[in-house]
């Protein structure tokens, strides 16, 4: 009896362990193929000029884009939250909108506007515009929560405003900056469509090329192995940079909003920066899509697959979101109610797995399914399983914060009133957690709606999601035909993005795992 109290119900543990062990399949497969391929062949596949070239491209992309996004994100967040920027509230929302535009749609918009885009700088431009909100959003949220009296202390110690920002504000923003940067880095590693459109080769585009040439060949798997290594380097690097720091707000002083600083002579430049960001990241793709939509006219919307693709996308996204939330629940519950080393390990596994490019996870599942569970091969179950692994942390993070806010006393009160523990849990606690569960599900939904790469690999025969159809149209250079699909994806994503924005004002961890 006491044992259960301490470690958690056995059934919950088993479910949590099951889900998180499923997450070991991709890593396991990569290691397995490396072993099977054998040292010499593997070496020949890995140590060749093409891999060096891809490594250069990929590393260059990450090294340039991530700091750039961090700087732009922090600057935008500061301007919106702390300066007398004109229209700060409106910009506060607009700067999150790029999250509703999948990177490959953004790329499509840009290529439509500037067809000659290609190479690393175009990659930096498009990826930067797509991903900077991943730093902006958490940094803005953190800026709002910082205790202004800490900055006043620094000022009272004779430190000038800009130095205060560098010495006091920036260090306190370290965690959101690092967290956002890590997510951007992982996105850069796993993005396919955006870079394929501008003919910029990264590991992921090369793996897809190999896959298209050889299906499940050793070269693709060798590249995937290298990609996984880069991924792990990023994860370890971030966790190292994060260190043991947790900048808890000390003291109990009531939060009051920080004073906004007058921009003075910098006002035009600041206004230009923020408006420029919005125009480039939202305006350009939307304008391109709009142009194609106008060109396609009403006929553009009579595409025979449009309704089907919309229905399939919503279906997958809903099922994926619900399944992910349900399966995330045991882990979240254990993490909140029965924290311990085992639970931490289980949680980390889900986190690491979701950090792997979806492509790698999909490759592993295709191969494992063909060999071991042919009945699952080419079924939606496999697709949903990969979605689950890709987006599990989004649900866990939200459920955790929801569960943590439930006062355990309430459940105990219900039990003292004669409710069976299970009933008490489901009638009291579950109802409290529902909003967080919905938020988590919404984020998973967003992820699935805009997922392209692994869906391409895994989709059962006859599957057409918006992303797949969009991509197929783009590949036939039917930009007009692709536009309605792009527009629908953005429309589906917008409400969720707004939800994300709204929750970032109340819940600090909401952006983790995007």
């Amino acid at each position, binding site marked *: 009896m006491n044992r259960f109290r301490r470690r958690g119900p056995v059934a919950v543990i088993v479910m949590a362990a099951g889900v998180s062990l499923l997450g070991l399949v991709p890593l396991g497969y990569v290691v397995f193929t490396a072993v099977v391929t054998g040292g010499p062949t593997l070496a020949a596949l890995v140590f060749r000029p093409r891999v060096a070239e891809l490594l250069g491209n990929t590393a260059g992309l990450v090294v340039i884009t991530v700091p750039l996004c961090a700087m732009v994100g922090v600057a935008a967040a500061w301007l919106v939250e702390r300066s007398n920027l004109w229209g700060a509230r409106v910009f506060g929302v607009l700067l999150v909108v790029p999250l509703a535009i999948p990177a490959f749609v953004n790329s499509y918009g840009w290529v439509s506007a500037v067809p000659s885009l290609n190479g690393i700088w175009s990659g930096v431009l498009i990826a930067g515009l797509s991903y900077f909100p991943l730093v902006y959003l958490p940094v803005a949220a953190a800026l709002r929560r910082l205790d202004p009296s*800490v900055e006043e202390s620094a*000022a009272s*110690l*004779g430190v000038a405003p800009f130095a205060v920002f560098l010495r006091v504000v920036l260090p*306190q923003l370290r965690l959101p900056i690092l967290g956002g940067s890590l997510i951007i880095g992982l996105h850069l590693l796993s993005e396919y469509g955006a870079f394929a459109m501008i003919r910029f080769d990264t590991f992921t585009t090369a793996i897809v090329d190999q896959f298209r040439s050889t299906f499940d060949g050793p070269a693709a798997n060798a590249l995937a192995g290298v990609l996984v290594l880069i991924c792990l380097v990023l994860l370890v690097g971030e966790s190292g940079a994060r260190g043991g720091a947790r900048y808890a707000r000390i003291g109990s002083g009531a939060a009051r909003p920080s004073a906004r600083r007058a921009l003075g002579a910098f006002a035009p430049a600041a206004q230009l920066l923020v408006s420029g960001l919005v125009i480039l990241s939202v305006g350009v793709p939307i304008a391109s899509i709009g142009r194609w939509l106008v060109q396609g006219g009403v006929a553009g919307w009579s595409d025979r697959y449009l309704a089907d693709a919309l229905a399939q996308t919503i279906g997958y996204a809903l099922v994926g979101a619900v399944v992910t939330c349900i399966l995330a629940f045991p882990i979240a519950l254990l993490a909140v109610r029965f924290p311990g080393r085992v639970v931490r390990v289980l949680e980390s596994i889900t986190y690491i797995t979701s950090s792997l490019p979806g492509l790698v996870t999909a490759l592993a599942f295709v191969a494992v399914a063909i060999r071991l569970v042919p009945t699952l091969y080419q079924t939606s179950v496999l697709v949903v399983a990969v979605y689950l692994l890709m987006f599990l942390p989004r649900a866990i993070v939200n459920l955790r914060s929801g569960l943590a806010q439930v006062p355990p006393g309430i459940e105990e009160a219900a039990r003292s009133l004669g409710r069976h523990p299970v009933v008490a849990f489901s009638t009291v606690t579950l109802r409290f957690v529902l909003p967080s569960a919905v938020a988590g599900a919404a984020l998973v939904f967003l992820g699935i709606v805009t997922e392209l790469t692994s869906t391409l690999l895994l989709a059962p025969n006859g599957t057409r999601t918006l992303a797949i159809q969009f991509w197929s149209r783009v590949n036939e250079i039917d930009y007009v035909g692709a536009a309605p699909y792009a527009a629908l994806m953005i429309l589906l994503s917008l409400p969720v993005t707004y939800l994300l924005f709204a929750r970032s004002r109340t819940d600090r961890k909401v952006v983790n795992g995007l």
Partner: protein
Amino acid sequence: MRRTEPGDVELRAIGKSYGGTPVLDSIDLTVPAGSKTVIVGSSGSGKTTLLRLLSGFDFPDAGTIRIGKDTVAGPGVAIPAHRRGIGHVSQDGALFPHLTVRDNVAFGLDRHQRSERMTTVSELLELVSLDAGLADRRPDELSGGQQQRVALARAMARKPRVMLLDEPFSSLDTGLRSATRDLVSEALSAAGITTVLVTHDRAEALTFGDQVAMLRDGRLAQVGTPTAMYSMPTDLATARFLGDVIVIEALASGGRVECALGIVAQSTSLDGPCLAMFRPEQLRVGRLTAGADDGGCIARIIGLEYQGATRLLTLDVPGSVPLEVPVTGDTRYLVGDRVSLRPTTEAVIFPTGRAGASSPTP
């Protein structure tokens, strides 16, 4: 480190309003160099705003502020905090959460004095009685009292002309509060730094400073030494804020004031109904001994509450509402006993006003 001479702090005709609501109105206050002034008031009285104007986190709409010879705020002048040479300690210390204690304390020190920094930090920690072993800790590993002392050490590091303390002890536990307060007071006195403390705590107001300024509804109600403020308050609200009171309805005529306790004041400018105010310790309760008259009136005990060191008697005094008077000592009293009640000093006389209810301050 900039060495600055301490100077008077002077506020003249300061006015400040937020969104049309006046928060401060015509504040005139001088804090003599090297002295300590406590600005006291209830929440919403404008005391924190006043301190923020002194700090330079905010600027007045009207009036001038002078620190030493420098006008730091006034018509056409708005020197921000970082150029005022002040020290500031806020309610919760506002330590930099990402820095160690040592780096917090050394934060304001100029960089080129790196070599001296370590010794300076050690001296400062010693000054605020903090163990040097804490220097490598992070703020969240310290207790509330330790955090406040680090905040003070940090503020003192630059030898500020003026130290501004914004309710720095209010978040501490009672026992820790007075100890920290005394320690900080001594450290500031030793350094001879002009100090302004803002508080809503009466004990702090009376023990910390050389001068107390009572702020109410954005105006200074009274300024004076702690003793004067306590024993000679100019209005009942101030009197109640700074201590327990016993108020008795009285009648003034021909300069003398008479109430149920007899004649309690010999000279007043008032005439007609008024209020006589005593501090509880100014009323003496004694046993009635046959034949002896100690000059007091006779009261009957109708209630008795044991409070540890003191007992609170509720006394039925003829011609007055019941009075609650604390007594100390060994004398045993029982409900129903008759006792004598005698003031030991003259009462402070206030006109009957809205605040003229006769029950003691809770």
